[in-house]
């Protein structure tokens, strides 16, 4: 089967030898797509957001809104832990399972040493695999959960991702009340947490959306070193994964009811459209960016939302709702992440970015 064939060609060129203005790295015959033949199902989901997100255009789709930034806890970090806890418990309840039915949890967040996930799991008591993919954590989690379930090692895996404006701001930028001006291309970290339960495909779970394929991302660095311009830094990573997906999955861009990117924001998604057009692929109405749609223009969030929760909450609300109802037959979900730290940027390094893709199909007629 060609799917598992390894490429024999040793590609020494760093970038492809094409006339493209922004050539990709090593367009070898390497098959990057993972196909899940046992089609793991996403049986439960939950999204928790903060007040600002609930007032945005997507507000009506979210399962729960926390009106208090601290949620009655002592610190913002505790509040984020509580959001993860709520989201995970909610997703498990939504899947009509108990905590003891869950075999493992795959989760991550933005904070150093992934404290949020670890502390949340400490209270939950589920075996834990911690992952760090910055804002791409949700797709990374879904991909790993799907492969764990598809291979038959586990029956039910829950994956989660979270971020909080106040905790991210303190770690990556300035104190909250510090009066600084943001550049017009900055983004706003989403406060929220999303969780989904991935289960094996059987008679009970047949009516749920299925994960059919996934593509692990390639670290892509086009030499952007502005900490505030995340959209421009991450767009090439999305380009790489999206181009690989469209060339290797056998689907064209029109076969998807929705192509969703994580948190490129307005600027980043415009750049991605430009980059794709240059490769002869036109992203039309079926392309949306979670960062672009989560806030209203008048909410003063500049280019839109960012953070793990940005795409995690939208996927676990709006997208999953439409997939479950059959309105979307097939979607591609590519979340992008910028894998820098504040130190690495001050040391003059550029921003390496990654984008993982997951293709999810509705149970009602995946073929188009």
């Amino acid at each position, binding site marked *: 089967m060609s799917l598992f064939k390894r490429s024999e060609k040793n590609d020494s060129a760093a970038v492809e030898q094409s006339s493209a203005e922004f050539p990709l790295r090593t367009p070898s015959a390497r098959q990057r797509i993972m196909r899940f033949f046992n089609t793991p199902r996403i049986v439960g989901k939950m999204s928790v957001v903060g007040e600002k997100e609930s007032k945005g255009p997507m507000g009506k789709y979210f399962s729960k809104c926390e009106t208090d930034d601290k949620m009655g806890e002592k610190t913002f970090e505790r509040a984020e832990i509580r959001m993860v806890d709520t989201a995970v418990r909610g997703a498990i309840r939504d899947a009509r399972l108990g905590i003891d039915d869950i075999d493992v949890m795959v989760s991550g967040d933005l904070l150093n040493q992934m404290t949020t996930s670890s502390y949340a799991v400490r209270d939950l008591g589920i075996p834990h695999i911690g992952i760090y993919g910055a804002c791409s954590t949700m797709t990374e989690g879904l991909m790993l959960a799907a492969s764990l379930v598809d291979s038959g090692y586990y029956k039910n895996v829950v994956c989660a991702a979270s971020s909080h404006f106040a905790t991210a701001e*303190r770690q990556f930028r300035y104190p909250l*009340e510090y009066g600084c001006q943001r550049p*017009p291309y900055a983004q706003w970290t989403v406060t929220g947490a999303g969780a989904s339960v991935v289960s094996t495909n059987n008679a009970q779970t047949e009516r749920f959306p299925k994960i059919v394929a996934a593509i692990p991302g390639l670290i892509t660095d086009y030499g952007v070193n502005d900490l505030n311009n995340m959209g421009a830094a991450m767009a090439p990573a999305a380009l790489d994964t999206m181009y690989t997906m469209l060339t290797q999955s056998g689907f064209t861009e029109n076969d998807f009811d929705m192509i969703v990117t994580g948190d490129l924001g307005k600027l980043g998604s415009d750049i991605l459209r430009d980059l794709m057009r240059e490769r002869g692929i036109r992203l039309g109405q079926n392309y949306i960016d979670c960062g672009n749609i989560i806030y209203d223009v008048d909410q003063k969030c500049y280019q839109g939302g960012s953070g793990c929760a940005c795409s995690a909450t939208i996927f676990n609300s709006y997208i999953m709702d439409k997939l479950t109802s059959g309105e979307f037959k097939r979607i591609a979900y590519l979340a992008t992440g910028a894998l820098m730290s504040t130190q690495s940027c001050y040391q003059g390094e550029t921003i390496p970015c990654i984008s993982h893709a997951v293709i999810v199909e509705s149970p009602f007629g995946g073929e188009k």
Partner: protein
Amino acid sequence: MSQNTNAVKARNERYNKYVETVTPKTSIPKALFHSFAVGGLTCVIGQGIGDIVKLISPTMPNDMVSNITSMILVTVAILFTGLGFFDVIARQGGAGSFLPITGFANAMASASMEFKTEGLIFGTSVKLFSVVGPVVVNGIVWSTVAGLINLLILGMK
């Protein structure tokens, strides 16, 4: 590894140039006007406070008047930071709110509030100068340099 090859370098340069053309920029005349308005207003208020202090006690030396004015401005800035107004003003004001003494007060107060959760010693005390540290360090270094130049050129007086 491959970040150093010429093809990648050329591509990155092209990409950065392209990004620069599509990235929205701050409108300079607007930003200048805003910072002039906010900074100027701060100074006018400071002058007003100084004049009032002078009216209340006409015999007070000028040094004392300016000290009291600064203290009042700093207190008000810290109060505004705590109440959450300051960053709203600063978002419009930019350098106009950052350059006067009120900006310094805001930077210290915001850091001490932010890191209060880690305790008085490891939070507030350690992080108090996290934002204003560069200002303090550069202030000391360059005033030392200026003093040395003064000493060399004009000699001890």
